[in-house]
Structure formats: C-alpha cells, structure tokens
C-alpha cells in the first residue's frame, strides 16, 4: 500500500482504485484475457453479424440443400437449404441470451440463499432443507410439469417465442441454483468465524454491511466459477429441452438444436455438427477462462503476486 501511495504522490497520478488493481491483476492472466477477447468476439458476431450477413436463417431454399461451403453460403446449407451461417448467428443469440440470463438468475438465487443460510443461523436449517428438497427433485419430470402448466398462459401473454424464453430462463434458473447455494454457504460459514469479521462486528458493523463489504467479496471466487459453469449448463439444458420438444419451436434455431438436428448427418456432413459443437465448446471454454482470471483477480490474497 505504501508503494502505491508513494507512486501516486511522485507522479501526481490520480489515486488507484480497487477496480484498477483488479484489472492490473486480470491482465496478467493470459488465458483470461484471451478468453474474454474471444467471448466478446462471439458476442459481436452473434449480435452484430446478422446486420451484415442478412440471409434469413429460417428461409428454406430447397434447391440449395446439403451444399458445402461456397461464397453464397460460407458454412454451407442444411438438409432443407437453410444457410448455416445465419442459423449459427441466430442460434447463438438465443443460446447466449438463455445461457447468460438463466445463469444470472440461478446465481442470484444461489448466492442469496447460500449467504442467508451461512450467515443467519436461524435460517440455515430451513434454507438448506429447501436446497436438499430441490436437489432431490427429479429434474426432468419437474420441468415437464412446469412447462405443461404454464406454457399456454405464457404463450398467450407474450407470444410463442418470448413466452418460451421467459419460461426457459425461469425453469433453468430455478433448477440450477442449489450447487451454488451449498458452496457459498460453506464458504460463508468458514469466513464468518475469521478474525476480521469478528473485528468488524466488534466495532458495530450491521449485518447488511458485513455481508456486502466483508463476506461477499471473499466468496466471489466460488461464485464466479459456478457462474461460468452455469452458462455452459444452461446452454446444454436448453438443448436437451429443445430435443424433447419442450423448448423453442423446432424451426427456431439454437445451438443445441442445430447440434441435435445435425447428428443424423454425422457421417455424410460432419461439418454440420462441427460448427455448432465448436461454437458451444469454445464459448464455454472462453467463459471458463474468464472465470478463472476473475477469481484470481478478485482474490486479494493472490493479487499482486
């Protein structure tokens, strides 16, 4: 700390913020930097790409089916003559949107419940039994029931695609927060007993401030890791649901659906499985690296080493 103080005084630079420190540390993790660049690149292609490559991914041009890469279709076409590049971009929008939103929801729930259970002793038993209950629930039948009960209502309220999007995000979010909650609770239990917590409690820090200022920053690393895994998990759950016919309509492209649709043609047109497969795995990998870097950068004990 003295170092920084001296530097800033000597060079008359503005005082260094915590976030700048964090960025300095993050920058040293090359994998994370590379992962982030790639993830931003994917986001750019998927969300800006359709404005440059204007073919409609749902338009069927039956005479152009099963084509290999060409100028008109750089990634070829599928069995109905739909342009694979457009479908990948459209599918990426849905998959990433579902993945990120569902991850955010499950993270919010998981962290909230984990911190509450770990910090407040009275809530612990109740919240952890609730977590056990959710863990014990057979996931697929639960999803079936939820979708069956609410599909028609949401469909009339928001239209088929938005309705299903809300349902999917909700369903994936509320069925995947349990692991996060358990990990967070464990960490909170350990940190709660540390001296610095005792110290700040002794000067009268209220629980709200204690959690946000002292506990949360210290449990950020497991949260970050489960967040990155969560995106991957959400993308995969969404594909599985689409495959069972419970997700988006079958002609609505998502990465998972593109992958499932292509498996039949694995022998003849292996590239069709390759593109969505690569997109899913590289995205998940890059997000994992980002998570890794974030964890290092956010952990004050590692920072500066």
């Amino acid at each position, binding site marked *: 700390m003295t170092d920084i103080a001296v530097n800033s005084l000597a060079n008359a630079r503005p005082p260094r913020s915590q976030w700048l420190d964090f960025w300095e540390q993050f920058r040293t993790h090359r994998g994370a930097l590379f992962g982030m660049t790639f993830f931003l690149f994917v986001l750019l292609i998927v969300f800006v790409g359709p404005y440059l490559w204007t073919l409609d991914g749902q*338009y069927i041009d039956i005479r152009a089916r099963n084509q290999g890469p060409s100028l008109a279709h750089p990634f070829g076409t599928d069995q*109905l003559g739909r342009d694979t590049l457009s479908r990948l971009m459209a599918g990426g929008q849905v998959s990433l949107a579902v993945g990120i939103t569902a991850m955010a929801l499950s993270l919010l729930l998981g962290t909230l419940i984990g911190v509450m259970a770990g910090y407040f002793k009275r809530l612990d038993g109740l919240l952890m039994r609730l977590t056990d209950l959710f863990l014990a629930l057979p996931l697929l039948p639960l999803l079936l029931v939820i979708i069956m009960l609410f599909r028609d209502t949401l469909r009339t309220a928001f239209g088929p695609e938005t309705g299903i999007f809300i349902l999917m995000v909700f369903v994936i979010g509320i069925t995947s927060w349990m692991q996060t909650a358990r990990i967070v609770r464990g960490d909170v239990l350990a940190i709660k007993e540390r001296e610095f917590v005792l110290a700040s409690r002794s000067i009268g820090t209220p629980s709200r401030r204690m959690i946000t200022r002292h506990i949360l920053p210290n449990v950020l690393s497991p949260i970050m890791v489960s967040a990155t895994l969560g995106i991957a998990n959400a993308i995969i759950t969404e594909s599985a649901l689409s495959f069972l016919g419970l997700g988006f*309509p079958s002609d609505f492209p998502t990465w998972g659906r593109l992958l499932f649709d292509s498996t039949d043609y694995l022998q003849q047109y292996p590239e069709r499985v390759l593109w969505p497969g690569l997109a899913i795995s590289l995205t998940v990998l890059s997000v994992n690296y980002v998570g890794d870097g974030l964890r290092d950068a956010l952990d004050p004990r590692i920072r500066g080493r």
Partner: protein
Amino acid sequence: MRLTKILLGAVAAMAMSSAAQAERGADGQVNIIYWQAPSTMNPYLSGGTKELEAASLVLEPLARYDQDGNMVPFLAEDVPTVANGGVSADLTTITWKLKEGLKWADGSAVTAADAVFTWKYCSHPEGGCAQSEKYNDVTGVEAVDDRTIKVTFGVSKPFPYGPFVGAQAPLIQAAQFANCLGAKAPECTDANFGPIGTGPFAVTDFRPNDVISLEANSNYRDPAKPAFAKVTFKGGGDAAAAGRSVLETGEFDYAWNLQLAPDVLANMQAAGKGTVVSSFGTLVERIMINMTNPDPALGDERATAKHAHPFLSDMAVRKALSMAVDRKLLVEIGYGDAGRPTCNVLPAPEIYKSSANDACLVQDIESAKKLLDDAGWVAGGDGVRAKDGKRLSILFQSSTNAVRQDFQALIKQWWSDIGVETELRNIDASVFFGGDPASPDTFQKFFADVEMYANNFDGTDPESYMANWECKQAPRPETQWQGNNMPRYCNADYDALVAEMAKTGDLNERARLAKAMNDKLMQEYIILPLVDRGRVSAHSNTLGGVVLNTWDSELWNAADWHRVKSQ
C-alpha cells in the same frame, strides 16, 4: 466370329436347360438377416413380426395375401366366396377345401382335422394365443371330410377371411402339438422351436434370439422347389448393420425392414452388391385438421364439438392449405424410395384406392391464394390473412422426429407463402401417442389447429379403419379423450356409409363404399394425406424371385427364391 456365336449359343442353351430342369436344393444356401431376432417359431405364441416372418418359412395358412393384397390359395384349392358357394348367403359359414396329397414335412398327410386342432389350440381358454382375434366370433370348426374344413361364425361376417388366412394364422400339426393345449403351450419347447410344417423349409436347429438353420422340406408339394437346400436365418443387430451386410459387404442375401434415411441407403446401394426394394401398404403420413376450437380460454369445452373452429371450419381455408403443399418434394426429402405422394387416406389395397383426388399431387400456390382472396381472407400489414378479426394463425403439432420436423418447417414456409402464419410444436412421441387423458399434449386431445402423424390398419379390410371418422369416435371428455376421430368430423352421410359397409358382404360393393368414404374425407379436406410410406428391404443382386409383400410375411414366396447365375 462363328466361334463366339457357337459359344454364346452354348451358354444360352445351358442357361435355358438350367431353368427348365430346376430342381430342389440346386442353388445351395441362402442367408437372411433380420435385425430383430426371433425368439420362437410358433406364431401363435408371439405377436412380433419377426417371429411371424421366420415361422412363415415353415408354416403355411390356407391362403395368403399377395403383394397387391389379393388372396391367393396356398394349402386350399381356391378362395371361397359367396359367388362360388364357399361362403353361405347369410355370411355365417365359410368352407375351405385342401389341395390333394398335401404332406407335412415328416411325411404324414395334412387333413381337415389339423385345421380343427389349430382352432382349438388358439381358442383354448387357458392359453394366451397371440392371434386369437383372427378367430374372433368363430363358434365351430368342423372337418366335413378329410379335405373339407367348415368354419361357422356366431354372427354374420362380411369379411370371413380371418381364420387360417395370412401369416398370423397358419395350420399347425395336430400330432405334434396334441399335448400342448392351453397353459401347456409355452412348455412344448421342441414343438415351438421346430414346428413341423408344410412350407418350403424345415427347421434343423433353432437358437432363440440368434440363428435359425433350415433345410429344404423334402415333402414340399412342388417337387422342383425350393431352389435352396439350406437357409441361415440370422437375427439381431441394427438396421444400418443389416443394410450394410447385404448392400456393401454381400455377406447376406436378404435384409428386412431397413428404416434408414434415403441418402444413407443410397450410399450403401452405391457399393453395387445389392438392391433396395420397397413395397407399399396402408401407412399414410397425414395432417389432421381440427374442426373444433382448441382455444385454452374455453376451459373444459376446449377442442370439443361445442365450439367450431374459428377459421378451419371454412372449407376454402382447408383446401388452400392442402393446395399449398408440395407432396412430391416431401417424399424426396423424407423418404426417398420408401415413400410416394398420395391424395388418399386409404391408399391400398388396389381395389379400395380412389383416383378421384389426384389433383392434390400438384402444388398450386397461386390458386390457393386466389381461393383465399375469393373467400374474403385478405392479407394484413404483416402478410397474414384475416377476416372479421380472425387471423389465419395456426399451431401445428407433431411428434419429435427429424423427418417430421423437416416436414413441419417446409410446410410452414409454403403456408406463409399463401398468407397463413404457422407456429410449430413438437412433442415427445411417447407423450404424443401415449393417450394419457391427464396430458394436454396427446394426439387425441389435439389442443392445436393441425397435427401430423402416420397411421395404418391391420390386414386388408378397411371397414374398421374407415369407421374411425364416425361422429361418435371423436375424442371428448365423456370418452376420457379416447377415440380415433381426431378431426372431430361429424357428418350424418358419412355415418350412414359406415353403417352400410358393416352389413355388406360383396367385395366390390364394399370397395365402392370405402372409396366413397375416402373421397368424402378428401374432398372436404378434413384430412390432408401427404406420403404413402412403404416398407423397405434389401436383397443381394444374386438373389432372384424376391417379391416384397406388406400384406403378409415378406418371406411369403421363399419357395420361389433362387440364385441368379452371374454372366
């Protein structure tokens, strides 16, 4: 030059003589592969196709169906009808006459008593006979003399060809199965694994769920047949492996039921060792149109006859939907040689096939648009047609299956070309066809505007199939949502035709009625048939005489199979 001619002549002469002097067992061995393995050779103890087909090499009925669904006499001299006096005028008895000099494979004579025994075997109260519906309503089977069999029914039977006809109801030997009646039937392992039959082959070794070895039946009624001395009938594996073993490697001569994508099969066939053959039965992929309103706001009265559909009850809309579909393209994409476009929900047998609806084979987007224009459906700003505030927006459901989803996507595009908006939904097949009244997603509940699936009927007689669209067959809450009339079609004229067919015995008259019913459904566009789906098998290029048959066992004419001599 002359030498070549002489040689050619000699070869030709040899070829002719070999054809003329065909003798039993001259062509050695034939290898058959079924990717589902038979577990018994007794068709009365198994409902499975694989067992029926394996058994058909050994056991024979009085008459079989040929590839067109016509009956041909096998053990009987001819097929009894009302016209030739074989069937009584009140349609309650049928009298069959056995061919002369028939022998079982062990050399003993085939008599009418064997038929009487077969009926007793299958109708025994303690024995679970898998084919008992073939003997429905039979009150007695009587051996009038050694060669004459008289079957009596308790009710008037317009179609009396259940007992002893087809692969499901062959004759078994009374002497061999005498101690195997009722509960003891499954215990007679030797008899069940090696039944003595009248067919072209006899079992020498049976390994359940694996391999069956057979040899030519030395007492077969045609002394020149079968051409093969030995048959190896291998079971197990999967369709792709079976296809490969015939088409690509040539290890086997015949592979059954190859449910594979058309381009996969075409790739295999390109290896040049074998040929893919297909034959068509009654399986039709169709779109059902909901005549009732599936709006969830209607609660318990949803999709019931109380509320007509807001726009699909307009025939112009249904007709336009049909005209916009290119059935030929659907076949090309989804089924290849295993399908053909059809405009009839009753596509076969030949005598029941109507030709009145063939106009639907040609896609006509422009006329469909005009039809909708004339009916007052005008396109709005978003391109979707509407009239009186009702938009042509359709929810289209089907079961989860790659081909079906491709079909849905294509049809959606055609319909959007004529200004109809479509939302697709696919449902897991076990739920969709599950029939669970608690699930909203079954094909009976039909909580959608249109739905697509395939269906067919057993055997060759369409009476009960056509009765599916009777008014009272509509699934509704009072029937626990069971029933076969998915479109909830209700027409008194149609019901009258159904009632008339139930009491008509004459085959031609029955055909006229069935066609009339089919035409009624087609011309009111209640059902939009898409593809007539066939059965696909493959045989080696050196195996001759294969005639694929969907009405009976595929091995029905194994006696005529022979080796094609290479040039």
